[in-house]
Protein backbone atom coordinates (compact mmCIF):
# COMPACT_ATOMS: atom_id res chain seq x y z
CA UNK A 1 0.00 0.00 0.00
CA UNK A 2 1.66 3.31 -1.08
CA UNK A 3 2.76 5.61 1.75
CA UNK A 4 0.79 8.65 0.53
CA UNK A 5 -2.30 6.41 0.86
CA UNK A 6 -1.34 5.78 4.52
CA UNK A 7 -0.85 9.52 5.13
CA UNK A 8 -4.25 10.20 3.52
CA UNK A 9 -5.94 7.58 5.76
CA UNK A 10 -4.33 8.89 8.96
CA UNK A 11 -5.39 12.47 8.14
CA UNK A 12 -8.96 11.28 7.38
CA UNK A 13 -9.16 9.14 10.54
CA UNK A 14 -7.76 11.99 12.70
CA UNK A 15 -10.43 14.48 11.66
CA UNK A 16 -13.12 11.78 11.53
CA UNK A 17 -12.35 11.15 15.23
CA UNK A 18 -12.56 14.94 15.72
CA UNK A 19 -16.08 14.73 14.29
CA UNK A 20 -16.54 15.34 10.53
CA UNK A 21 -17.16 11.96 8.98
CA UNK A 22 -17.14 13.25 5.35
CA UNK A 23 -13.33 13.51 5.52
CA UNK A 24 -13.43 9.73 4.95
CA UNK A 25 -16.46 9.65 2.71
CA UNK A 26 -14.99 11.87 0.01
CA UNK A 27 -11.96 9.61 -0.57
CA UNK A 28 -12.78 8.58 -4.17
CA UNK A 29 -10.73 5.40 -4.36
CA UNK A 30 -12.99 2.65 -2.98
CA UNK A 31 -10.18 0.52 -1.52
CA UNK A 32 -8.55 3.28 0.51
CA UNK A 33 -11.97 4.49 1.69
CA UNK A 34 -12.78 1.07 3.15
CA UNK A 35 -9.28 0.90 4.70
CA UNK A 36 -9.85 4.29 6.27
CA UNK A 37 -13.16 3.14 7.73
CA UNK A 38 -11.53 0.05 9.20
CA UNK A 39 -8.75 2.17 10.71
CA UNK A 40 -11.40 4.48 12.19
CA UNK A 41 -13.23 1.60 13.85
CA UNK A 42 -9.98 0.23 15.26
CA UNK A 43 -9.02 3.66 16.58
CA UNK A 44 -12.42 4.03 18.27
CA UNK A 45 -12.18 0.63 19.94
CA UNK A 46 -8.63 1.35 21.07
CA UNK A 47 -9.85 4.59 22.62
CA UNK A 48 -12.64 2.76 24.43
CA UNK A 49 -10.38 -0.03 25.75
CA UNK A 50 -7.73 2.26 27.21
CA UNK A 51 -10.20 4.17 29.40
CA UNK A 52 -10.37 2.10 32.65
CA UNK A 53 -13.57 0.11 31.96
CA UNK A 54 -15.30 -0.08 35.34
CA UNK A 55 -15.40 -3.82 36.07
CA UNK A 56 -19.16 -4.63 36.10
CA UNK A 57 -18.62 -7.91 37.99
CA UNK A 58 -20.65 -8.62 41.11
CA UNK A 59 -22.86 -5.63 40.47
CA UNK A 60 -25.69 -7.86 41.65
CA UNK A 61 -24.06 -8.06 45.04
CA UNK A 62 -24.07 -4.32 45.34
CA UNK A 63 -27.72 -4.18 44.38
CA UNK A 64 -28.75 -6.83 46.86
CA UNK A 65 -26.39 -6.22 49.77
CA UNK A 66 -26.41 -2.63 50.90
CA UNK A 67 -28.83 0.10 50.23
CA UNK A 68 -26.99 3.28 51.05
CA UNK A 69 -24.24 4.01 48.45
CA UNK A 70 -22.06 5.76 51.06
CA UNK A 71 -21.93 2.66 53.21
CA UNK A 72 -18.93 0.50 52.26
CA UNK A 73 -19.76 -2.47 50.00
CA UNK A 74 -19.94 -5.85 51.67
CA UNK A 75 -16.62 -7.09 50.38
CA UNK A 76 -14.90 -3.97 51.69
CA UNK A 77 -16.45 -4.60 55.09
CA UNK A 78 -15.35 -8.24 55.01
CA UNK A 79 -11.86 -7.22 53.84
CA UNK A 80 -11.52 -4.69 56.64
CA UNK A 81 -12.69 -7.21 59.20
CA UNK A 82 -10.30 -9.85 57.90
CA UNK A 83 -7.44 -7.38 57.91
CA UNK A 84 -7.48 -6.77 61.59
CA UNK A 85 -8.34 -10.40 62.40
CA UNK A 86 -5.69 -12.08 60.22
CA UNK A 87 -2.96 -9.43 59.78
CA UNK A 88 -1.13 -9.90 56.49
CA UNK A 89 -3.35 -12.42 54.77
CA UNK A 90 -4.95 -10.04 52.26
CA UNK A 91 -2.82 -9.52 49.17
CA UNK A 92 -4.39 -6.53 47.52
CA UNK A 93 -6.87 -4.11 48.97
CA UNK A 94 -10.40 -4.74 47.82
CA UNK A 95 -10.22 -4.33 44.06
CA UNK A 96 -13.68 -3.86 42.45
CA UNK A 97 -15.96 -6.38 44.16
CA UNK A 98 -13.78 -9.33 45.16
CA UNK A 99 -11.12 -10.03 47.79
CA UNK A 100 -7.68 -11.06 46.67
CA UNK A 101 -6.06 -13.27 49.32
CA UNK A 102 -2.89 -15.16 50.02
CA UNK A 103 -3.42 -18.89 50.40
CA UNK A 104 -1.68 -19.01 53.78
CA UNK A 105 -4.38 -19.32 56.43
CA UNK A 106 -7.32 -19.63 54.10
CA UNK A 107 -8.73 -22.54 56.11
CA UNK A 108 -9.05 -20.50 59.30
CA UNK A 109 -10.45 -17.53 57.37
CA UNK A 110 -13.03 -19.81 55.79
CA UNK A 111 -14.10 -21.12 59.18
CA UNK A 112 -14.24 -17.56 60.50
CA UNK A 113 -16.38 -16.43 57.56
CA UNK A 114 -18.77 -19.29 58.14
CA UNK A 115 -19.16 -18.90 61.90
CA UNK A 116 -19.05 -15.09 62.23
CA UNK A 117 -22.63 -14.12 63.14
CA UNK A 118 -22.92 -11.09 60.88
CA UNK A 119 -21.44 -12.85 57.80
CA UNK A 120 -22.64 -16.48 58.17
CA UNK A 121 -21.39 -17.62 54.74
CA UNK A 122 -22.82 -21.11 55.10
CA UNK A 123 -22.96 -22.09 51.44
CA UNK A 124 -20.00 -22.38 49.09
CA UNK A 125 -21.66 -21.59 45.78
CA UNK A 126 -18.92 -22.23 43.29
CA UNK A 127 -15.17 -22.89 43.03
CA UNK A 128 -13.65 -21.76 39.73
CA UNK A 129 -10.12 -22.44 38.60
CA UNK A 130 -8.52 -19.72 36.47
CA UNK A 131 -5.40 -19.61 34.33
CA UNK A 132 -3.92 -16.16 33.66
CA UNK A 133 -2.17 -17.40 30.51
CA UNK A 134 0.79 -19.43 29.29
CA UNK A 135 3.54 -19.34 31.94
CA UNK A 136 1.48 -17.04 34.26
CA UNK A 137 0.19 -18.33 37.57
CA UNK A 138 -3.13 -20.01 38.41
CA UNK A 139 -5.94 -18.78 40.62
CA UNK A 140 -8.89 -20.29 42.50
CA UNK A 141 -12.03 -18.19 42.92
CA UNK A 142 -14.57 -18.99 45.61
CA UNK A 143 -18.11 -17.58 45.50
CA UNK A 144 -19.59 -17.68 48.99
CA UNK A 145 -23.20 -17.07 49.83
CA UNK A 146 -25.16 -16.74 53.05
CA UNK A 147 -28.61 -18.29 53.20
CA UNK A 148 -29.71 -16.19 56.18
CA UNK A 149 -28.32 -12.75 55.21
CA UNK A 150 -28.72 -13.51 51.49
CA UNK A 151 -25.49 -11.79 50.42
CA UNK A 152 -22.55 -13.10 48.38
CA UNK A 153 -18.83 -12.33 48.07
CA UNK A 154 -16.02 -13.62 45.88
CA UNK A 155 -12.59 -14.59 47.19
CA UNK A 156 -9.60 -15.17 44.89
CA UNK A 157 -6.40 -16.97 45.82
CA UNK A 158 -3.41 -16.93 43.46
CA UNK A 159 -0.87 -19.78 43.33
CA UNK A 160 2.16 -20.12 41.10
CA UNK A 161 2.09 -22.47 38.14
CA UNK A 162 4.70 -25.15 38.76
CA UNK A 163 3.44 -26.51 42.08
CA UNK A 164 0.08 -24.90 42.79
CA UNK A 165 -1.04 -25.42 46.39
CA UNK A 166 -4.16 -24.09 48.15
CA UNK A 167 -5.44 -25.19 51.59
CA UNK A 168 -8.61 -27.29 51.24
CA UNK A 169 -11.91 -26.14 52.73
CA UNK A 170 -13.51 -29.55 52.59
CA UNK A 171 -14.06 -29.57 56.36
CA UNK A 172 -15.74 -26.14 56.30
CA UNK A 173 -18.18 -26.75 53.44
CA UNK A 174 -18.79 -30.44 52.55
CA UNK A 175 -19.31 -29.62 48.85
CA UNK A 176 -15.71 -28.40 48.76
CA UNK A 177 -14.77 -32.08 48.41
CA UNK A 178 -16.15 -32.44 44.88
CA UNK A 179 -15.60 -28.83 43.75
CA UNK A 180 -11.91 -29.04 44.68
CA UNK A 181 -11.51 -32.43 43.05
CA UNK A 182 -12.94 -30.95 39.85
CA UNK A 183 -10.60 -27.92 39.99
CA UNK A 184 -7.71 -30.30 40.61
CA UNK A 185 -8.84 -32.41 37.68
CA UNK A 186 -9.00 -29.42 35.33
CA UNK A 187 -6.11 -27.24 36.54
CA UNK A 188 -3.84 -29.48 38.63
CA UNK A 189 -4.18 -27.27 41.71
CA UNK A 190 -3.36 -29.39 44.79
CA UNK A 191 -5.66 -28.79 47.76
CA UNK A 192 -3.74 -29.66 50.94
CA UNK A 193 -5.77 -31.50 53.54
CA UNK A 194 -8.26 -32.88 51.03
CA UNK A 195 -9.44 -36.43 51.91
CA UNK A 196 -8.94 -38.09 48.48
CA UNK A 197 -7.33 -35.81 45.96
CA UNK A 198 -7.98 -37.70 42.71
CA UNK A 199 -9.54 -36.67 39.40
CA UNK A 200 -13.32 -36.61 39.32
CA UNK A 201 -14.30 -36.15 35.65
CA UNK A 202 -11.38 -37.45 33.62
CA UNK A 203 -10.08 -40.99 34.13
CA UNK A 204 -7.62 -41.28 37.04
CA UNK A 205 -4.55 -41.82 34.85
CA UNK A 206 -5.24 -39.05 32.31
CA UNK A 207 -2.14 -36.97 31.66
CA UNK A 208 -2.15 -33.17 31.61
CA UNK A 209 -4.56 -30.61 33.03
CA UNK A 210 -7.26 -30.02 30.38
CA UNK A 211 -8.34 -26.46 31.11
CA UNK A 212 -4.87 -24.94 31.28
CA UNK A 213 -4.21 -22.69 28.33
CA UNK A 214 -1.05 -24.62 27.32
CA UNK A 215 -2.76 -28.05 27.24
CA UNK A 216 -2.42 -30.49 24.32
CA UNK A 217 -4.43 -33.72 24.31
CA UNK A 218 -2.26 -36.82 24.59
CA UNK A 219 -1.88 -38.94 21.48
CA UNK A 220 -3.21 -42.25 22.75
CA UNK A 221 -4.91 -43.32 25.95
CA UNK A 222 -4.46 -47.02 26.74
CA UNK A 223 -3.83 -47.61 23.06
CA UNK A 224 -6.94 -45.79 21.87
CA UNK A 225 -6.11 -42.95 19.50
CA UNK A 226 -7.52 -39.86 21.17
CA UNK A 227 -7.99 -37.25 18.40
CA UNK A 228 -10.87 -38.32 16.16
CA UNK A 229 -9.59 -39.04 12.63
CA UNK A 230 -12.23 -38.91 9.85
CA UNK A 231 -11.19 -39.81 6.29
CA UNK A 232 -12.70 -37.94 3.39
CA UNK A 233 -13.13 -34.83 5.44
CA UNK A 234 -10.00 -32.74 6.08
Amino acid sequence: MSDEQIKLIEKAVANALAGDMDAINDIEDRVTRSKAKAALVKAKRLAKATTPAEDPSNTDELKVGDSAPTEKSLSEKVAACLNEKFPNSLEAEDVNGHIQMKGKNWFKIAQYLRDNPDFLFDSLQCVTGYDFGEGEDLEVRYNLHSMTHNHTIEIRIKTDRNNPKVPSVEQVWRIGDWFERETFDMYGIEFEGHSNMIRILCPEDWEGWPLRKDYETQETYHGIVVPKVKDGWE
Partner: protein
Amino acid sequence: MGVVHGDLMTLNIGPQHPSTHGVLRLKVKTDGEIISEVEPIIGYLHRCFEKHCENVTYEQVIPYTDRCDYIAAMNNNFGYAVTVEELMEIKVPERVEYIRVIVAELNRIASHLLALGAYGLDVGAFTPFLYMFRDRERILDLFETLCGARLLYNYIWVGGVSHDLPPGFIGAVYSFLDYFEPKIEEYNELLTYNKIFIERTGDVGVMPPEVAVSYGVTGPNLRGSGVKWDIRKDEPYSIYDKFDFDIPVGAGEMGTVGDCWDRYYVRMVEMKESVKITRQALKGIPAGDVHQALPKKIRPPQGSIYKRTESPRGDLAYYIVSDGSPIPYRLKMRSPAFTALSVLSEISQGWMMSDVLAILGSLDIVLGEIDR
Protein backbone atom coordinates in the same frame (compact mmCIF):
# COMPACT_ATOMS: atom_id res chain seq x y z
CA MET B 1 -30.53 -57.60 69.70
CA GLY B 2 -27.10 -57.06 68.11
CA VAL B 3 -27.10 -56.69 64.36
CA VAL B 4 -25.29 -59.51 62.61
CA HIS B 5 -22.50 -58.10 60.37
CA GLY B 6 -21.20 -60.29 57.59
CA ASP B 7 -18.26 -59.08 55.47
CA LEU B 8 -19.11 -56.33 52.97
CA MET B 9 -19.74 -57.10 49.31
CA THR B 10 -18.87 -54.40 46.82
CA LEU B 11 -21.47 -54.14 44.14
CA ASN B 12 -21.37 -51.98 41.03
CA ILE B 13 -24.64 -50.29 40.23
CA GLY B 14 -22.76 -49.82 37.01
CA PRO B 15 -22.75 -47.24 34.23
CA GLN B 16 -25.40 -49.25 32.41
CA HIS B 17 -28.29 -49.58 34.86
CA PRO B 18 -31.99 -48.93 34.32
CA SER B 19 -32.40 -46.40 37.09
CA THR B 20 -29.23 -44.33 37.31
CA HIS B 21 -30.76 -41.57 35.18
CA GLY B 22 -27.78 -41.57 32.86
CA VAL B 23 -24.23 -42.87 32.80
CA LEU B 24 -23.41 -43.01 36.49
CA ARG B 25 -21.65 -45.73 38.41
CA LEU B 26 -22.36 -46.26 42.11
CA LYS B 27 -19.72 -48.30 43.89
CA VAL B 28 -21.83 -49.72 46.70
CA LYS B 29 -20.58 -51.62 49.75
CA THR B 30 -23.47 -53.76 50.95
CA ASP B 31 -23.86 -56.16 53.83
CA GLY B 32 -26.72 -58.32 52.48
CA GLU B 33 -29.40 -55.74 51.71
CA ILE B 34 -28.15 -52.98 54.02
CA ILE B 35 -25.94 -50.40 52.30
CA SER B 36 -22.97 -49.21 54.32
CA GLU B 37 -21.29 -46.94 51.77
CA VAL B 38 -22.14 -45.48 48.35
CA GLU B 39 -19.49 -43.83 46.21
CA PRO B 40 -20.79 -42.23 43.01
CA ILE B 41 -18.24 -42.32 40.18
CA ILE B 42 -18.92 -39.79 37.43
CA GLY B 43 -17.14 -38.64 34.32
CA TYR B 44 -18.55 -41.09 31.79
CA LEU B 45 -20.38 -38.30 29.97
CA HIS B 46 -17.66 -35.64 30.26
CA ARG B 47 -17.63 -33.74 26.93
CA CYS B 48 -15.26 -30.86 27.86
CA PHE B 49 -18.03 -28.25 27.78
CA GLU B 50 -15.82 -25.60 29.40
CA LYS B 51 -12.90 -26.28 27.02
CA HIS B 52 -15.27 -25.97 24.03
CA CYS B 53 -16.56 -22.66 25.37
CA GLU B 54 -13.00 -21.31 25.24
CA ASN B 55 -12.87 -21.91 21.47
CA VAL B 56 -16.29 -20.78 20.19
CA THR B 57 -17.91 -17.35 20.12
CA TYR B 58 -20.64 -16.28 22.55
CA GLU B 59 -23.48 -17.06 20.09
CA GLN B 60 -22.07 -20.52 19.40
CA VAL B 61 -21.95 -21.44 23.11
CA ILE B 62 -25.76 -21.56 23.29
CA PRO B 63 -26.14 -24.96 21.54
CA TYR B 64 -23.56 -26.28 24.02
CA THR B 65 -25.52 -25.01 27.03
CA ASP B 66 -28.57 -26.83 25.59
CA ARG B 67 -26.71 -30.07 25.81
CA CYS B 68 -25.64 -29.75 29.42
CA ASP B 69 -29.03 -30.22 31.01
CA TYR B 70 -30.85 -31.68 28.03
CA ILE B 71 -34.13 -32.07 29.94
CA ALA B 72 -34.46 -28.37 30.76
CA ALA B 73 -32.53 -26.83 27.84
CA MET B 74 -34.62 -23.64 27.83
CA ASN B 75 -33.63 -22.84 31.42
CA ASN B 76 -29.96 -23.39 30.55
CA ASN B 77 -30.15 -21.01 27.60
CA PHE B 78 -32.03 -18.54 29.78
CA GLY B 79 -29.34 -18.63 32.51
CA TYR B 80 -26.53 -18.20 30.01
CA ALA B 81 -28.28 -15.41 28.08
CA VAL B 82 -29.14 -13.49 31.27
CA THR B 83 -25.50 -13.70 32.45
CA VAL B 84 -24.00 -12.45 29.18
CA GLU B 85 -26.62 -9.70 28.91
CA GLU B 86 -25.73 -8.44 32.38
CA LEU B 87 -22.04 -8.53 31.40
CA MET B 88 -22.78 -6.47 28.28
CA GLU B 89 -25.46 -4.34 29.95
CA ILE B 90 -28.02 -5.09 27.21
CA LYS B 91 -31.63 -4.14 28.02
CA VAL B 92 -33.94 -6.75 26.47
CA PRO B 93 -37.40 -5.61 25.22
CA GLU B 94 -40.40 -6.39 27.45
CA ARG B 95 -41.97 -8.89 25.02
CA VAL B 96 -38.81 -11.00 24.99
CA GLU B 97 -38.76 -11.11 28.80
CA TYR B 98 -42.35 -12.39 28.83
CA ILE B 99 -41.65 -14.99 26.13
CA ARG B 100 -38.62 -16.18 28.06
CA VAL B 101 -40.59 -16.59 31.30
CA ILE B 102 -43.39 -18.50 29.52
CA VAL B 103 -40.98 -20.79 27.77
CA ALA B 104 -38.80 -21.35 30.87
CA GLU B 105 -41.81 -22.22 33.04
CA LEU B 106 -43.20 -24.62 30.41
CA ASN B 107 -39.81 -26.30 30.28
CA ARG B 108 -39.80 -26.49 34.09
CA ILE B 109 -43.12 -28.36 33.96
CA ALA B 110 -41.75 -30.70 31.29
CA SER B 111 -38.59 -31.34 33.29
CA HIS B 112 -40.53 -32.02 36.51
CA LEU B 113 -42.87 -34.37 34.63
CA LEU B 114 -39.90 -36.41 33.49
CA ALA B 115 -38.33 -36.35 36.95
CA LEU B 116 -41.54 -37.47 38.72
CA GLY B 117 -42.33 -40.08 36.04
CA ALA B 118 -38.85 -41.58 36.20
CA TYR B 119 -39.09 -41.54 39.99
CA GLY B 120 -42.31 -43.55 39.77
CA LEU B 121 -40.42 -46.02 37.59
CA ASP B 122 -37.60 -46.36 40.10
CA VAL B 123 -40.18 -47.23 42.74
CA GLY B 124 -41.90 -49.68 40.43
CA ALA B 125 -45.06 -47.87 39.24
CA PHE B 126 -45.07 -48.03 35.45
CA THR B 127 -48.30 -46.33 34.40
CA PRO B 128 -47.79 -42.88 36.02
CA PHE B 129 -44.57 -42.63 33.98
CA LEU B 130 -46.57 -43.05 30.78
CA TYR B 131 -49.27 -40.59 31.85
CA MET B 132 -46.65 -37.94 32.65
CA PHE B 133 -44.84 -38.51 29.37
CA ARG B 134 -48.09 -38.18 27.46
CA ASP B 135 -48.53 -34.70 28.96
CA ARG B 136 -44.86 -33.83 28.47
CA GLU B 137 -45.34 -34.58 24.75
CA ARG B 138 -47.91 -31.77 24.59
CA ILE B 139 -45.28 -29.29 25.82
CA LEU B 140 -42.68 -30.61 23.40
CA ASP B 141 -45.16 -30.17 20.56
CA LEU B 142 -45.56 -26.52 21.57
CA PHE B 143 -41.79 -26.03 21.58
CA GLU B 144 -41.50 -27.71 18.20
CA THR B 145 -43.82 -25.19 16.61
CA LEU B 146 -41.95 -22.38 18.37
CA CYS B 147 -38.35 -23.17 17.53
CA GLY B 148 -38.42 -26.36 15.50
CA ALA B 149 -36.71 -28.54 18.09
CA ARG B 150 -38.28 -30.72 20.80
CA LEU B 151 -35.43 -31.08 23.27
CA LEU B 152 -32.40 -28.90 22.37
CA TYR B 153 -33.89 -25.59 21.36
CA ASN B 154 -31.13 -22.96 20.82
CA TYR B 155 -34.08 -20.57 21.15
CA ILE B 156 -33.10 -17.98 23.78
CA TRP B 157 -30.20 -15.95 22.34
CA VAL B 158 -28.05 -13.30 23.98
CA GLY B 159 -30.17 -10.16 23.67
CA GLY B 160 -33.46 -11.73 22.54
CA VAL B 161 -35.01 -14.88 21.12
CA SER B 162 -34.53 -16.52 17.74
CA HIS B 163 -38.20 -16.43 16.58
CA ASP B 164 -41.34 -14.64 17.60
CA LEU B 165 -44.37 -16.68 18.73
CA PRO B 166 -46.23 -18.39 15.86
CA PRO B 167 -49.82 -17.10 15.39
CA GLY B 168 -51.79 -19.77 17.32
CA PHE B 169 -49.20 -20.26 20.05
CA ILE B 170 -50.81 -18.36 22.94
CA GLY B 171 -54.16 -20.10 22.35
CA ALA B 172 -52.42 -23.49 22.28
CA VAL B 173 -50.61 -22.76 25.57
CA TYR B 174 -53.89 -21.73 27.21
CA SER B 175 -55.55 -24.95 26.02
CA PHE B 176 -52.59 -26.96 27.34
CA LEU B 177 -52.75 -25.30 30.77
CA ASP B 178 -56.49 -25.95 31.06
CA TYR B 179 -55.91 -29.58 29.97
CA PHE B 180 -52.99 -30.02 32.37
CA GLU B 181 -54.31 -28.74 35.72
CA PRO B 182 -56.80 -31.59 36.39
CA LYS B 183 -54.11 -34.06 35.36
CA ILE B 184 -52.00 -33.10 38.38
CA GLU B 185 -54.88 -34.21 40.62
CA GLU B 186 -54.92 -37.52 38.76
CA TYR B 187 -51.20 -38.08 39.38
CA ASN B 188 -51.74 -37.30 43.06
CA GLU B 189 -54.52 -39.86 43.33
CA LEU B 190 -52.61 -42.49 41.40
CA LEU B 191 -49.14 -42.16 42.87
CA THR B 192 -48.58 -39.44 45.49
CA TYR B 193 -51.09 -40.73 48.04
CA ASN B 194 -50.72 -44.39 47.11
CA LYS B 195 -49.96 -46.24 50.36
CA ILE B 196 -47.21 -48.40 48.85
CA PHE B 197 -45.56 -45.28 47.39
CA ILE B 198 -45.76 -43.59 50.78
CA GLU B 199 -44.26 -46.67 52.43
CA ARG B 200 -41.42 -46.66 49.92
CA THR B 201 -40.61 -42.95 50.10
CA GLY B 202 -41.81 -41.60 53.44
CA ASP B 203 -38.99 -41.33 56.02
CA VAL B 204 -36.48 -42.60 53.43
CA GLY B 205 -33.23 -40.75 52.69
CA VAL B 206 -33.86 -37.89 55.12
CA MET B 207 -31.66 -34.87 54.35
CA PRO B 208 -31.50 -32.43 57.28
CA PRO B 209 -31.32 -28.74 56.21
CA GLU B 210 -27.79 -28.07 57.48
CA VAL B 211 -26.44 -31.10 55.59
CA ALA B 212 -28.21 -29.84 52.48
CA VAL B 213 -26.73 -26.34 52.80
CA SER B 214 -23.27 -27.65 53.61
CA TYR B 215 -23.36 -29.85 50.52
CA GLY B 216 -24.50 -26.90 48.42
CA VAL B 217 -27.73 -28.69 47.47
CA THR B 218 -30.20 -26.29 45.88
CA GLY B 219 -33.56 -26.25 44.17
CA PRO B 220 -36.42 -28.68 44.95
CA ASN B 221 -34.02 -30.92 46.94
CA LEU B 222 -33.20 -28.04 49.29
CA ARG B 223 -36.79 -26.85 49.48
CA GLY B 224 -37.78 -30.44 50.28
CA SER B 225 -35.64 -30.16 53.41
CA GLY B 226 -37.58 -27.13 54.55
CA VAL B 227 -35.20 -24.32 53.49
CA LYS B 228 -37.18 -21.65 51.62
CA TRP B 229 -34.63 -20.63 48.94
CA ASP B 230 -35.66 -19.94 45.36
CA ILE B 231 -33.68 -17.55 43.20
CA ARG B 232 -36.79 -16.44 41.32
CA LYS B 233 -37.94 -14.95 44.62
CA ASP B 234 -34.78 -14.22 46.63
CA GLU B 235 -32.59 -12.80 43.85
CA PRO B 236 -35.09 -12.07 41.07
CA TYR B 237 -33.67 -11.96 37.55
CA SER B 238 -35.50 -11.08 34.32
CA ILE B 239 -39.09 -10.12 35.28
CA TYR B 240 -39.86 -12.76 37.89
CA ASP B 241 -40.59 -10.04 40.45
CA LYS B 242 -43.68 -9.08 38.39
CA PHE B 243 -45.44 -12.39 39.03
CA ASP B 244 -46.89 -13.60 42.31
CA PHE B 245 -46.36 -17.28 43.03
CA ASP B 246 -45.34 -19.04 46.22
CA ILE B 247 -42.51 -21.42 46.97
CA PRO B 248 -43.56 -24.92 48.12
CA VAL B 249 -41.46 -26.18 51.03
CA GLY B 250 -41.25 -29.71 52.41
CA ALA B 251 -43.43 -30.10 55.53
CA GLY B 252 -42.86 -33.74 56.38
CA GLU B 253 -46.50 -34.78 55.83
CA MET B 254 -45.65 -38.41 55.24
CA GLY B 255 -42.66 -38.75 57.54
CA THR B 256 -39.87 -36.42 58.61
CA VAL B 257 -39.06 -33.17 56.79
CA GLY B 258 -36.56 -33.71 53.97
CA ASP B 259 -37.43 -37.30 53.04
CA CYS B 260 -37.87 -38.57 49.47
CA TRP B 261 -41.63 -37.99 49.58
CA ASP B 262 -41.11 -34.29 50.38
CA ARG B 263 -38.70 -33.79 47.50
CA TYR B 264 -41.23 -35.54 45.22
CA TYR B 265 -44.18 -33.50 46.51
CA VAL B 266 -42.31 -30.16 46.28
CA ARG B 267 -41.85 -30.80 42.54
CA MET B 268 -45.51 -31.68 42.16
CA VAL B 269 -46.63 -28.39 43.80
CA GLU B 270 -43.98 -26.47 41.87
CA MET B 271 -45.65 -27.59 38.66
CA LYS B 272 -48.87 -25.95 39.85
CA GLU B 273 -46.94 -22.76 40.58
CA SER B 274 -45.38 -22.80 37.12
CA VAL B 275 -48.85 -23.08 35.61
CA LYS B 276 -49.86 -19.99 37.65
CA ILE B 277 -46.80 -18.03 36.44
CA THR B 278 -47.39 -19.02 32.81
CA ARG B 279 -51.00 -17.85 32.99
CA GLN B 280 -50.00 -14.46 34.38
CA ALA B 281 -47.24 -14.12 31.76
CA LEU B 282 -49.64 -15.07 28.95
CA LYS B 283 -52.11 -12.44 30.13
CA GLY B 284 -49.56 -9.66 30.32
CA ILE B 285 -47.45 -10.29 27.20
CA PRO B 286 -46.96 -6.98 25.28
CA ALA B 287 -46.37 -6.57 21.52
CA GLY B 288 -42.95 -5.73 20.18
CA ASP B 289 -40.07 -6.81 17.98
CA VAL B 290 -38.05 -9.66 19.47
CA HIS B 291 -34.99 -9.09 17.28
CA GLN B 292 -34.60 -5.47 18.31
CA ALA B 293 -31.87 -5.90 20.96
CA LEU B 294 -29.94 -8.70 19.26
CA PRO B 295 -26.35 -7.42 19.05
CA LYS B 296 -24.66 -7.78 15.63
CA LYS B 297 -21.35 -8.82 17.18
CA ILE B 298 -21.17 -9.94 20.81
CA ARG B 299 -17.98 -8.56 22.36
CA PRO B 300 -18.55 -8.14 26.11
CA PRO B 301 -16.23 -5.64 27.86
CA GLN B 302 -13.36 -6.98 29.93
CA GLY B 303 -14.41 -8.38 33.32
CA SER B 304 -15.95 -11.31 35.12
CA ILE B 305 -19.47 -12.05 36.32
CA TYR B 306 -21.20 -14.71 38.46
CA LYS B 307 -24.97 -14.87 37.97
CA ARG B 308 -27.44 -17.43 39.30
CA THR B 309 -30.77 -18.52 37.84
CA GLU B 310 -33.32 -21.07 38.98
CA SER B 311 -33.29 -24.21 36.80
CA PRO B 312 -35.68 -27.11 37.62
CA ARG B 313 -32.80 -28.82 39.40
CA GLY B 314 -31.57 -25.85 41.43
CA ASP B 315 -29.12 -22.94 41.22
CA LEU B 316 -27.76 -22.91 37.70
CA ALA B 317 -24.96 -20.32 37.69
CA TYR B 318 -22.48 -19.16 35.08
CA TYR B 319 -19.10 -17.64 35.95
CA ILE B 320 -17.94 -15.92 32.77
CA VAL B 321 -14.62 -14.08 32.40
CA SER B 322 -14.36 -12.06 29.20
CA ASP B 323 -11.21 -10.42 27.83
CA GLY B 324 -13.08 -8.18 25.33
CA SER B 325 -12.77 -10.68 22.45
CA PRO B 326 -15.81 -12.44 20.93
CA ILE B 327 -14.60 -15.71 22.52
CA PRO B 328 -15.10 -16.26 26.27
CA TYR B 329 -11.78 -16.42 28.16
CA ARG B 330 -13.17 -18.66 30.91
CA LEU B 331 -16.71 -20.04 31.35
CA LYS B 332 -17.60 -22.11 34.37
CA MET B 333 -21.08 -23.58 34.79
CA ARG B 334 -22.10 -24.36 38.36
CA SER B 335 -24.41 -27.35 37.89
CA PRO B 336 -27.10 -28.01 40.54
CA ALA B 337 -27.21 -31.77 39.85
CA PHE B 338 -23.45 -31.99 40.63
CA THR B 339 -24.06 -30.86 44.22
CA ALA B 340 -27.24 -32.95 44.50
CA LEU B 341 -25.30 -36.12 43.63
CA SER B 342 -22.51 -35.30 46.09
CA VAL B 343 -24.98 -35.56 48.97
CA LEU B 344 -26.06 -39.09 47.96
CA SER B 345 -23.30 -40.87 49.89
CA GLU B 346 -24.17 -38.96 53.06
CA ILE B 347 -27.94 -39.55 53.10
CA SER B 348 -28.00 -43.17 51.91
CA GLN B 349 -26.05 -44.67 54.80
CA GLY B 350 -27.76 -47.65 56.32
CA TRP B 351 -30.70 -47.85 53.88
CA MET B 352 -31.53 -50.88 51.78
CA MET B 353 -30.60 -51.55 48.16
CA SER B 354 -33.93 -50.51 46.68
CA ASP B 355 -33.92 -47.36 48.83
CA VAL B 356 -30.62 -46.12 47.41
CA LEU B 357 -32.23 -46.09 43.98
CA ALA B 358 -35.33 -44.40 45.40
CA ILE B 359 -33.11 -41.71 47.00
CA LEU B 360 -31.15 -41.29 43.76
CA GLY B 361 -34.43 -40.89 41.86
CA SER B 362 -35.72 -38.29 44.33
CA LEU B 363 -32.57 -36.17 43.84
CA ASP B 364 -33.48 -35.90 40.13
CA ILE B 365 -29.99 -35.74 38.66
CA VAL B 366 -29.05 -35.41 34.99
CA LEU B 367 -25.63 -36.77 34.12
CA GLY B 368 -25.18 -34.44 31.14
CA GLU B 369 -25.12 -31.51 33.56
CA ILE B 370 -22.97 -33.25 36.17
CA ASP B 371 -20.20 -34.33 33.80
CA ARG B 372 -20.48 -31.26 31.50
